[in-house]
């Protein structure tokens, strides 16, 4: 009797759709230990970006020429650079720049890419051909080359790096979203709501967008990793963030000049990049497994 009533209760209790879905995803995500580590690290990095600069012993530009190019010590955990600045403190100061570039450039790229991809996939025909040819043109500049082109036109600085990396990420989003849209469009439930008399706007926003959201999120996470690498590359070439900004790529570029005498100057900013990029890659992989086990890169 008692058992029966609890069953009844649990059956009649309405459950919130969004919580329900998020719960399921989180459950699967939790099982993926690597993804949990990645997610935790990302949270830690975000936290560091906000409060880290207040905790570290030195300012980002605080020079001490007497102590230049010193190796790691208790005083300077990661040593000092050619101007005697504390590398550890600079890396912590640079965290927010790195994350800012990663999140913001991908955010811009995702917005453009999703719009292009959905319009292209949903409407098809001439507009699809036109948009996809445009993406092909952008993709014909492989890798960092497109970003280099944008920076060439717009002078190297931080915001232009974000723009450059965004432009270079748009086609990836557009293609993935277009592919997913095409797949979802063919499903019978889209026909069912069309048969009910639903218009394009409702179909796109209520029925297609939510169901292509998973690949977008996964792509975004993995793209942040690529964006950080690309931006660091631009700065390394002197075409991105300019010294004395504590941007890791730019710090590496400095370190390159002292590689013969003081290898640590290049070592630590690079390690910082590896750790952050790794965290996003791991988390992205885990998200992909949790959101859509069938989806492959």
């Amino acid at each position, binding site marked *: 009797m008692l058992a029966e009533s609890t069953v009844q209760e649990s059956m009649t209790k309405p459950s919130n759709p969004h919580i329900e879905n998020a719960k399921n995803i989180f459950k699967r995500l939790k099982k993926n230990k690597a993804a949990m580590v990645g997610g935790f690290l990302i949270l830690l990095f975000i936290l560091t970006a906000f409060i880290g600069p207040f905790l570290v012993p030195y300012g980002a530009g605080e020079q001490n020429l007497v102590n230049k190019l010193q190796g790691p010590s208790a005083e300077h955990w990661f040593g000092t650079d050619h101007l005697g600045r504390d590398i550890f403190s600079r890396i912590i100061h640079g965290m927010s720049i790195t994350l800012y570039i990663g999140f913001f450039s991908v955010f811009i790229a995702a917005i453009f890419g999703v719009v292009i991809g959905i319009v292209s996939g949903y409407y098809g025909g001439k507009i699809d051909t036109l948009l996809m040819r445009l993406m092909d043109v952008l993709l014909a*500049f492989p890798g960092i080359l497109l970003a280099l082109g944008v920076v060439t036109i717009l002078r190297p600085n931080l915001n232009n790096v974000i723009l450059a990396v965004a432009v270079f990420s748009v086609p990836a989003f557009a293609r993935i979203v277009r592919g997913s849209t095409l797949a979802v469009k063919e499903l019978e439930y889209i026909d069912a709501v069309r048969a009910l008399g639903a218009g394009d706007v409702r179909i796109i926003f209520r029925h297609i967008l939510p169901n292509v959201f998973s690949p977008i999120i996964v792509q975004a996470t993995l793209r942040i990793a690529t964006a950080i690498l690309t931006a660091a590359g631009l700065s390394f070439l002197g075409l991105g963030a300019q010294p004395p900004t504590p941007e890791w790529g730019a710090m590496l570029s400095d370190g390159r000049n002292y590689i013969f005498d003081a290898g640590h100057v290049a*070592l630590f900013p690079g390690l910082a990049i590896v750790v952050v990029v*790794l965290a996003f890659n791991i988390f992205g992989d885990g998200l992909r497994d949790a959101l859509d086990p069938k989806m492959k890169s």
Partner: protein
Amino acid sequence: MFVFTIRRILQTIPVLFGVSILVFLMMHLVPGDPAQVIAGEAASPQTIEQIRERLGLNDPLPMQYLNFIMNALQGDLGTSIRSGQPVSEEVFSRFWVTMELAFYSMILSAFIGLIAGIISAVRHYTIIDVVVMIIALFGLSMPNFWLGLMLMQFFSINLEILPVSGWGTPEQIILPVIALGTAGAAIIARMTRSSMLEVIGQDYIRTARAKGVKERFVIYKHALKNAMIPVVTVIGLEFGTLLTGAVLTETVFSINGLGRFVVESIRARDFPAVQGSVLVIALVFILVNLIVDLSYRFLNKRIDLN
């Protein structure tokens, strides 16, 4: 297949057209007067006018584009502002260095990536798989320029067994190729693994097992051939990434290739040189994609050519 090949080649024409427009517009999208930008802030009006004359900037834009294209088709990519030499010569003298670097790196990536990916898939969920995949994740997450610097520091500066810079001798080739090829190897390994795992779940693999085929042949005869189809595409596309990755690697190892030339030209705001080399790299990339696409179709007999 023949019709498909022709159609695919024709499809690249609008892309080529778009690329050429973008490259051409590069100079004109720069805020302000391109001639002023090239000449520098302090240049006299006469110098600016000279540059304007030399680059044909006084013509209407469509006319300039037409000239640009006609010249490019005849192999004339303009004159480098920095060196005064024809851009085509500057590009061509460096072209093969970059091609070599990219090619060797691709061989390395494909070789290591395939082996690692297959091992990982066959030993699915064992410690070997986990270790290989962790290494691959690191490979994917490392900036190639930093890896180059670290290799250089260890092998050239600490151990003094390999040269720091340059290109040509076998010793000079080793480090840049490893630095550039590592990320590609990681990508190919991951792709091979997931492709293999997907194929192993297919019905025809079950058929092969039901026929009494030895597990070894199930993997290497039935699964691998199917799994390779998407991997070949990735390997092909990787070549393009390597071409541009060379920009960074060449800078690190002071290799006088096309990538470094682009960077230096950008720094010097030598627009004709940038335009010329970007155009050449994009063309090579489009060509490689075309070849990859055609070979993909050729490999994948399942794809209906209609």
